[in-house]
């Protein structure tokens, strides 16, 4: 009798778990991807994944992705993309080096960068609306513009790489990195879940017309969302620069795509809307960094790394983004 009861209780829990999983496939899939990577890499790397040194390395590389994709959350929640981020970050890094080398002040450099990111945010948000352009066009424009500027900036120095002797070591301390991630994530979590900004950006992504009819000045909030992204880009650029103290023509160029891939891995729908969650950025960017780190640690041939990454990406995506309505999703 007792046993039967136990069994039925177990069954109940099991069925509750399965129904939860069924209802939250996309959430579960992104976590499952991360956990799976952790477990597999732990084994294949002979445990080196968890050596103190590697954890600090992982932290250092994940921090920029995480901060930038946390900011990108606001933009992606609206169903937009910003493909200019990479080029922007490259220019910011260079600019900061120039300013630091000229004045010795990191603060001034950061401040100038912040102003620029806010301007770009306003541009992406407002100009797109005023000119009635899809925002991908303005960001494409910014990508060309900043890409060109980055190129010219490096060229103007007569060297292929620009560097500074400023001591950034404080930014590489693990506790500073963790603290920064926690603070940024905390602020984003707050903004995203408990303020108008988060709710409106998701609303714009889900149904812009309705959102506008609920008294939301969509243009204004688009600009704010892009600006919030800008702030994160500025912080991310600072950490990126701190890592090497130098920048060149290709610095950060891959970030636009990296951030997008990270968010998708975290379960973010590119159409934006209500399914956008803070964990998309956290889980996604962590999985993304982990993949590169773990695959190399596991001694996978470099030519196969891309292939394995692609397969993992497809699996996560199929699990998390599958659309069950009858029509083929666009």
């Amino acid at each position, binding site marked *: 009798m007792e046993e039967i009861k136990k069994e039925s209780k177990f069954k109940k829990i099991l069925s509750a778990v399965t129904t939860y999983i069924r209802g939250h496939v996309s959430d579960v899939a992104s976590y499952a991807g991360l956990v799976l990577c952790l477990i597999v890499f732990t084994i294949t790397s002979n445990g080196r994944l968890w050596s103190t040194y590697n954890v600090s390395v992982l932290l250092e590389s994940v921090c920029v992705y995480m901060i930038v994709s946390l900011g990108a959350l606001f933009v992606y929640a609206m169903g937009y993309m910003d493909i200019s981020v990479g080029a922007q970050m490259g220019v910011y890094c260079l600019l900061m080096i120039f300013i630091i080398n000229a004045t010795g002040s990191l603060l001034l450099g950061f401040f100038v960068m912040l102003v620029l990111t806010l301007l770009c945010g306003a541009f992406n948000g407002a100009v797109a609306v005023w*000119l009635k352009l899809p925002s991908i*066009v303005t960001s*494409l*424009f910014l990508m060309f513009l900043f890409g060109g500027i980055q190129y010219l900036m490096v060229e103007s120095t007569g060297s292929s790489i620009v560097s500074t002797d400023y001591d950034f070591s404080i930014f590489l301390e693990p506790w500073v990195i963790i603290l920064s991630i926690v603070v940024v994530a905390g602020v984003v979590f707050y903004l995203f879940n408990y303020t108008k900004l988060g709710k409106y950006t998701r609303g714009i992504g889900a149904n812009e017309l309705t959102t506008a009819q609920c008294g939301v000045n969509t243009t204004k909030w688009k600009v704010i969302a892009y600006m919030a992204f800008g702030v994160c880009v500025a912080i991310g650029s600072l950490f990126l620069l701190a890592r090497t103290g130098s920048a060149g023509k290709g610095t950060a160029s891959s970030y636009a795509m990296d951030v997008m891939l990270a968010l998708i891995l975290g379960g973010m729908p590119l159409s934006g809307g209500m399914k956008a969650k803070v964990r998309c950025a956290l889980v996604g960017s962590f999985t993304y960094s982990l993949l590169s780190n773990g695959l190399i640690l596991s001694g996978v041939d470099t030519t196969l790394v891309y292939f394995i990454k692609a397969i993992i*990406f497809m699996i996560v995506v199929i699990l998390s*983004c599958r*659309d069950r309505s009858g029509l*083929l999703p666009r």
Partner: protein
Amino acid sequence: MSMKSKIVNVLKRTGLTLAFPALIFVVMLIITLANGINYYVSGIMVRQVVTDATLTTIIALAIYLQFKNGRFDFSGGATMILSAIIAGNITLQAGGNSVMFMVLSVLFAVVFSVLTASVYIASKVPVIICTIGMTLLYESLTYVLFDAEGLSIISRVDMVLFGRVPYIFIPLVIVLALFIFFTYFTTEGRRAKLLSGNQKVAVSIGIRENKNVLITYIVCGVILGFGALVYGSQQIITTQSNLSTSSILFSYIVPVFIGMFIGKASVDAVGVVAAAVGMEFLNYGLDCLGVGAGGYQQIIFGMFMLAFYAFSAQAGNIKKLLNKVVAKFTKQEKKELPDVR
């Protein structure tokens, strides 16, 4: 409509479409001359513009075919690159010629397109995300296949016939004809149009979407195959990673949008050709000015793109404004229902 007005109409439309490249040409000519460069117009320029514009047109049409049907396909670039690598290397190893290269390019591009479409249909993942995934997959294969050497056959004259004048017109004509034939004259092309207009309704009327997507992808694959042929015949292809093929795609996307706009005056495919020619006039002019690559080229290109977009987005408003002014003078009340029902 009388025969005469029909002819006038056709001429007018053609003129409007051709105005874009003509304008760019004249502007670039003036700028180069003003800078003391007298070699803008030359035989090399014609050859260069023709070969580049052909490649641009083919790739742009492949992007456009999906775009037109409501899908944004990230994987086009990767499909093309991978097909070119496989087809090219097999042809090399077999000691084949251009025709074999062409056949294999088309074959592999179709195979990969069908694969993409099948994964899309089976997985039901939104098309952008799905094709991003397939792009990563195809890019990763460039490392695995043929010792990651990519493809370098540009100097094999016997293999790259179709990348050069005059044979380059063969893939161009085939692709143009295929595109126009498919979108305007075939059953599936018409169905694709209905699907892109209103997916839900079209499906409920009884159009089988899966079949249509598959067929559209096959056609797109053929176009991409010719793209691979020309691309592989003109450029050295190296391994690709982290969506680098999408930037190849992006670099050809501007003619798509411009073509869509100027194509309104005539047939959209012709618009794409005109846009491609126009863009190549621009590029070649920039080359002559010494800013054909590097920072300035990017900035100029970006500015040009934004300006064009901004203009075309406002074109409706400008037209409306003109109409209003005209209406005021002629006191003709338009009987047009407002947008609101």
